[in-house]
């Protein structure tokens, strides 16, 4: 059983297109995240959601719009894709207990914008 799953695993698309990445966790966690990992392996947090509400938006362009239909899902929609959006996008989840808690990551979505 996969704890945090993402679809699709690979995404190749043209510049200017709109695409979505889906994430689901079956851990019963309250908090979910999106990260972007660039070609140099640098991992940067994009968004944090707690109980379906946006908590953190790390100055991500508004072309990126996360949506959380319920606590187990956090999807990422990207409008007007640019070459610089090419990266690996990771979803993660953690339990929210008021303390810092371990994050569990999905397998990643490899996005290539041509």
């Amino acid at each position, binding site marked *: 059983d996969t704890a945090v799953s993402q679809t699709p695993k690979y995404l190749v698309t043209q510049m200017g297109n709109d695409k979505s990445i889906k994430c689901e966790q079956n851990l019963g966690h309250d908090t979910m995240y999106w990260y972007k990992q660039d070609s140099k*392996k*640098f*991992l940067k947090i994009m968004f*944090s959601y707690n109980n379906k509400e946006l*908590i953190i938006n790390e100055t991500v362009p508004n072309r990126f719009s996360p949506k959380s239909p319920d606590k187990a899902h956090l999807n990422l929609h990207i409008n007007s894709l640019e070459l610089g959006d090419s990266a690996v996008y990771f979803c993660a989840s953690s339990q*929210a207990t008021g303390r810092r808690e371990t*994050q569990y990551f999905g397998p*990643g979505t490899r996005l290539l914008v041509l």
Partner: protein
Amino acid sequence: GESVGLHLPTLSVQEGDNSIINCAYSNSASDYFIWYKQESGKGPQFIIDIRSNMDKRQGQRVTVLLNKTVKHLSLQIAATQPGDSAVYFCAQAPGTYKYIFGTGTRLKVLA
């Protein structure tokens, strides 16, 4: 700005030897630190964590040391095995929902 940095981008270790991966962090407000392992084509995987009220924590073959005075974190892997080859990240948590990752160190285990 805030950063979590690593001293060595690539570390090569002989199989069976001990590995030490170092990390410097800049945010004094962080009270929680984590080490992750990322294998090729996979997401980061939790290895071990430590809270700021501790200076050492041990797991199975891994030990994390925290020196708050110099803002330094290290991961020690005992008897390094080929399966330990991966990129290792340290991360700090200055807030409940915010995590800052370091740049990563690639560990290569030589047979």
